[in-house]
């Protein structure tokens, strides 16, 4: 019942927002409510799963709309309930990002078992599939001369993993006219339910080459460095590199072979 009500609430958000959007559009003509952009270049995000391919990044689209209360930011839907000189707080609905790794897996024939001993006949093995989860949570943003902080607390509302995530990120940007450098770092706590859904292996999924595994809660860490150079009003050159260390509980899973997720992208971004 709770699940159905949550879905109903998510479906109703755009309709509830519509009258507010009309009012908001007339208010501020200075800064466009839209943020539209596209980046073309090359990059990858490594895939920590066994028998998987890295995720190539060639195009990055940026589609966002920010009203006084409601906003849409590249798939995230938000309702801002507090905004003052100190912080901005919103309720946000989003799609969980852990699922992305499961879209780039391969079936391979394996001829050794869990102990590394040869099998009589090769068996096919593919990392198990996982679903996208819709999560609802609270986001708090604060900033100052000291930098910017972001806190998120999200809970699954789609009945997919039924867990939660707490996320914090700190960033500080330096600008020297066209040049912009922004390092950031942070952590995210993944609950046992969330961790186990994505990185656990059920007895049904286990076989000769993967043992059943139950993951507990854990903390992922990340650092990121962004370098940007503004070429003109619309064009910028961007270079971004990111390192994420998965929690030990996830790394111990038989479907994980790398504890780190590395990513980079370099290219030219156009902002409309």
């Amino acid at each position, binding site marked *: 019942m709770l699940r159905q009500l949550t879905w109903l609430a998510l479906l109703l958000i755009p309709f509830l927002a519509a009258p507010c959007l009309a009012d908001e559009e007339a208010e501020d003509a200075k*800064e466009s409510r839209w*943020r539209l*952009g596209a*980046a073309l270049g090359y*990059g990858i*995000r490594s895939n920590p799963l066994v028998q998987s391919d890295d*995720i190539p*990044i060639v195009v*990055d689209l*940026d589609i*966002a709309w*920010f009203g006084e209360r409601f*906003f849409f*930011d*590249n*798939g*995230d839907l*938000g309702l*801002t309930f507090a*905004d003052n000189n100190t*912080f*901005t707080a*919103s309720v946000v609905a*989003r799609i969980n*990002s852990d699922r*992305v790794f499961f879209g780039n897996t391969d079936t391979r024939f394996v001829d050794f078992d869990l102990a590394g001993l040869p099998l009589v006949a090769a068996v096919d093995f593919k990392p198990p599939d996982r679903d996208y989860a819709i999560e609802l949570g609270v*986001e708090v*943003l*604060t*900033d100052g*001369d000291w930098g*910017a902080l*972001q806190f998120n607390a999200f809970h699954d509302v789609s009945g997919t993993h039924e867990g939660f995530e707490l*996320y914090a*990120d700190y*960033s500080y940007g330096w*600008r020297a*006219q*066209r040049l*912009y450098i922004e390092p*950031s770092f942070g952590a995210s706590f993944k609950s046992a339910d969330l961790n186990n859904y994505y990185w656990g292996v059920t007895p049904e999924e286990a076989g000769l080459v993967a043992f059943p595994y139950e993951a507990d809660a854990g903390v992922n860490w990340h650092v990121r460095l*962004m370098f940007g150079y*503004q070429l*003109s*009003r619309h064009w910028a050159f*961007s270079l*971004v590199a990111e390192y994420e260390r998965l929690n030990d509980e996830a790394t111990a899973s038989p479907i994980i072979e790398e504890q780190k997720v590395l*990513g980079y*992208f370099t290219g030219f*971004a156009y902002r409309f």
Partner: protein
Amino acid sequence: MRLLITLALLLPALSMSEAAAAEDMTLTVKPVLCITDNLTPSCDMSFLVVWQSALTGYYCLFTDFDDAPVHCWNEERTGRLSDERTVRKNFSYWMTDQDQISRLAVATVEVLRMDSDDRRRKRRTRHVWDLN
């Protein structure tokens, strides 16, 4: 009568040379982009202004900031100037001839504000990639 005919022949030629001056005047300004943010809300910059004309003459450089010319050159066909300014919004430099009315060439400096008062525009999303 001969004088009138001479004048009649010279006037179109004079106006043609003015038009030619307008067409052949080039004005370049560097830099043409100034970037501001919340920590640096204005640009303190030195703008290098260079102009060149096909015809030698009396030319003046103006900006949006003042009714009086920044500088005038007499009997010149090229000129350069370094102009120190603190700017917060877009503005233009332009060249005029002696009448100081018609703009022979215009160059615009754009001021681009990178930060927003809306914190949500800087929020980090957790997508495959995120350039925000």
